[in-house]
């Protein structure tokens, strides 16, 4: 069957198309070239010049695995609000609390209804990967994938402290990608989660983990090189040391130099762009961070924008979340040490526009967005749910595209925070082309999804159709149509057909001899068998759902 989308106004940065009038043909879930006149077109939709982009890809969103489920369990009040019948009791906005911890079904539905066709869980604890895949497996509509966390696991730290050669590290990293069915590697507070278990409370880039006598810099060097040498598309995903701490921008700048020019991605960089100026010893270092991002072409970043309202922060960084637990709102939190593998910290937060720090955090995120020149190296995220629920993306897009809307919002902030931000002097307004770059083309390129994020012949037919409107929040909230693998699944912002996406992985080759050391380690120190650590394709892809795609490394 061939579907024709007639009179599309195509915005496809991967092919340099910015509003080109075109027809798009779809067959068997793929975009095809114009078929010959003899071939029958079964379905034609005349788009009359509506905007057409590839389906959006969220490259960093906590949609699966232990942390978010702990948040759901701990915060029943978030979902409870959904049931309130009095209209004033539950005024649902995109950043409403009940979107902070959505069920897996709601997650898939809300994403597709905004025109997103894929989301990547960025912090899969290797030992918890099976849970992450179970949850993602119950998330309908969208493609999924994840990054496995390394760098605080005792197996890796023993290798590094024992001066194992790079090949041994590479084999272990490749083995982990296979075992956990992931597509990238993340490091969270390099060495710090482990250090917290030895009662260290902070860890700087060149400070030793007391037990292993290795530094975060060494961990970053080793892992970024492994990822690079294995040919994995996705650069090492780095959650820097000193998350959320005033003055942490220096750590972030230094981290950019830690990989000796090997690509790295610094995640939720807003939370790592804080100075210590002013009376309150908390200031924006967005200018320094943006300048460094502009200069260091091997570094990319996503922002982790905060938006005001009630949410919950869920992080692998138990060291820093243990400190943040003091300002939890509501006052409860979960901190865990996990399996000599990692940890987690789940802390509810309420970001308030009249709070100096929160208001400045909001401004810092936007300052970074507007000051980083290359939309191929900066990504639109709220670090869902940490900065805000992903459902607030349309609002964030409007903040980026609409200067007067942004400045009006700024004028309502805490006055001291306003005085500490140069946001109103930044005149930039993102174009649709730039939004399409950061949410589609660049995200697919970063992760290595060659047939997603663009509308070229051969691409998967993940397609979103919008009506261009002055109010970009309205425009991006409610696409006219969304196609997932060629099927029409959303019409007028509502799901009309339930489908199940795919699971994206990468599986670089490795020396199977790596399992000898691992087997010995598991038998001595773990509490599960090595074979049970590994997740098979069949566990993920069941009943025709969640087919595992392996993206070959280059």
């Amino acid at each position, binding site marked *: 069957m061939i579907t024709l989308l007639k009179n599309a106004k195509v915005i496809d940065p991967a092919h340099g198309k910015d509003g080109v009038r075109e027809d798009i043909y779809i067959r068997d879930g793929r975009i095809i070239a114009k078929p010959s006149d003899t071939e029958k077109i079964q379905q034609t939709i005349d788009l009359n010049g509506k905007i057409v982009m590839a389906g959006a890809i969220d490259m960093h969103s906590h949609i699966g695995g232990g942390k978010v*489920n702990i948040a759901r369990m701990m915060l029943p009040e978030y979902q409870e609000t959904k049931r309130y019948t009095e209209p004033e009791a539950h005024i649902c906005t995109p950043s409403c609390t009940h979107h902070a911890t959505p069920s897996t079904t709601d997650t898939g539905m809300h994403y597709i209804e905004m025109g997103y066709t894929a989301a990547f869980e960025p912090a899969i604890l290797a*030992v918890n990967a099976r*849970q992450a895949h*179970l949850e993602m497996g119950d998330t309908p509509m969208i493609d999924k994938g994840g990054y496995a966390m390394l760098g605080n696991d005792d197996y890796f730290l023993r290798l590094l402290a024992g001066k194992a050669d790079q090949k041994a590290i590479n084999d272990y990293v490749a083995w982990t990608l296979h075992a956990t069915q992931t597509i990238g590697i993340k490091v969270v507070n390099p060495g710090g989660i482990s250090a917290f278990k030895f009662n260290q409370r902070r860890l700087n880039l060149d400070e030793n983990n007391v037990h292993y006598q290795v530094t975060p810099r060494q961990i970053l060097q080793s892992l970024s090189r492994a990822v690079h040498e294995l040919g994995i598309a996705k650069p090492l995903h780095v959650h820097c040391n000193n998350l959320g701490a005033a003055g942490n921008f220096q750590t972030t700048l230094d981290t950019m130099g830690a990989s000796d020019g090997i690509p790295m991605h610094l995640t939720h960089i807003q939370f790592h762009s804080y100075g210590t100026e002013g009376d309150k010893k908390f200031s924006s270092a967005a200018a320094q961070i943006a300048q460094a991002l502009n200069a260091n072409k091997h570094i990319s970043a996503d922002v982790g924008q905060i938006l005001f309202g009630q949410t919950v922060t869920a992080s692998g960084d138990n060291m820093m979340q243990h400190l943040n637990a003091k300002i939890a709102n509501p006052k*409860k939190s979960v901190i865990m*040490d996990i399996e000599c593998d990692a940890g987690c910290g789940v802390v509810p937060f309420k970001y308030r526009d009249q709070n100096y720090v929160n208001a400045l955090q909001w401004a810092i995120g936007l300052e970074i967005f507007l000051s980083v020149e290359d939309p191929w190296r900066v990504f639109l995220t709220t670090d869902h749910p940490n900065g805000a629920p992903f459902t607030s993306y349309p609002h964030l897009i409007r903040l980026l595209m609409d200067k007067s809307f942004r400045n009006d919002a700024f004028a309502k902030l805490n006055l001291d925070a306003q005085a500490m931000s140069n946001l109103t002097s930044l005149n930039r307004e993102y174009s649709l082309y730039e939004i399409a770059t950061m949410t589609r083309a660049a995200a697919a390129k970063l992760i290595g999804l060659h047939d997603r994020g663009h509308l070229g012949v051969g691409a998967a037919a993940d397609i979103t159709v919008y009506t261009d409107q002055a109010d970009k929040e309205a425009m991006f909230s409610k696409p006219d149509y969304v196609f997932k693998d060629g099927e029409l699944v959303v019409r007028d912002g509502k799901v009309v057909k339930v489908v199940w996406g795919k699971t994206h992985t990468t599986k670089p080759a490795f020396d199977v001899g790596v399992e000898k050391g691992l087997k010995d380690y598991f038998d001595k120190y773990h509490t599960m068998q090595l074979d049970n650590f590994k997740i098979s394709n069949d566990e993920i892809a069941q009943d025709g759902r969640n087919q595992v795609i392996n993206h070959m490394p280059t």
Partner: protein
Amino acid sequence: MQTSTTKTVNATCPACGLLCDDVTVSWQGPDAKLDVTVKSGKPCGKTVAFFSRPLNAATPMIAGKPVSLVEAIAHAGKLVQQAQMPLVAGLSTDLAGFRAAYQFAHPAQSNRPQANMMHMNVHSSLRNTKVLQSTGWQTTTLTEVKNRADMIVCIGTDVVHHNPRFFERAVWTDEAMFTDASARKVVYLGGDDLNTAPGVSPKGELPTVLPCATIDLPEVTAALRALLQGKVLKVDAIAGVKVSALTQLVEQLKQAKYAVLIWVAKDLDFPHAELTIQNITESVVILNQQSRAMGLGLGGSDGDTTVNYAHTWLDGLTLGEQDVDAHDLIVWINSFSPDKPMPNVSQPVIAFGHPDTQFTTPPEVFIPVATPGLDAAGTLFRVDSSVVLPLKKVRESTLPTLAEVLLKLEAQLA
């Protein structure tokens, strides 16, 4: 003449929350004698009993009379169609079984009502859930205990009644990365009828036992928490426990490199036991201001952790308590534990369960189903939450899985 092993299967044991996955089940010799072994030490009684249970012939029944599966499903379908407010209870099953049960309870079509759900361990699980939802907690997992813990405090429990191999697998281990395993300090604080023998170290070091009745633990744990906060208690003893002994415990906890405070919700069976669990978890929070300590809730059975977790991600909310009397049909699921009786109810019952399930009154419909980890493959969460393990199909069985039966029932209702 001795013949060689006829068949060997590496298995994961779902009989308690520890999910020991070092189990080997083999059938040896001419009469295929079943043998259950584990990698180190001895398999526990629960494991042996689980894997040794014979596969007795079983057939679906209507009101105690054998019928075909088709007839049983047809009758079950009628009961479901008549129900206004069904309750899916028991829920002793694995992940696949629960996913199917959840789908059954939340039909996409509106031709029948949604069902409520409740697990057979709801009362003990809720004690933990209430703490999680009130203050949260700071907890650890088995591999951290094995490699780090230099002090283990069991509060109101001996653990081994629920998790027989806990000390063997996580405390008195041959190896530990960061501590001398055989030198760990073990303390029992309170509890009834404890078996403290497993707390004796391999070197013969006896555990410290600070006895008090379970029912006195609210007071004793409150005292412990107060002392950790630096409060001064102007009494000599709390419920028979000397304050000097508690003070010594507090000092040892502060000195420990990694103290682990353990409770089992099922053993804290008294009104408002959640407040006692909270005393334990808040004691951990106080300790973590200066030194390192973590809590660990053990126990777990009948897939309770799995069912709570999966319900939470599928629904957005944890699984709670239901008033059985408010429902007009009970769908009872018990795949793992035929010895655990179904509560007496007056409503019609559709039961899916282990073929050996005993009933005082025969249910309206009974359909025997496969036991995950024995008759079918499956998936379960370990009690410490982060580890999810595959269960193996250990023996040949023609029993359908719960998911298969529920799919047939849904087809009947469509």
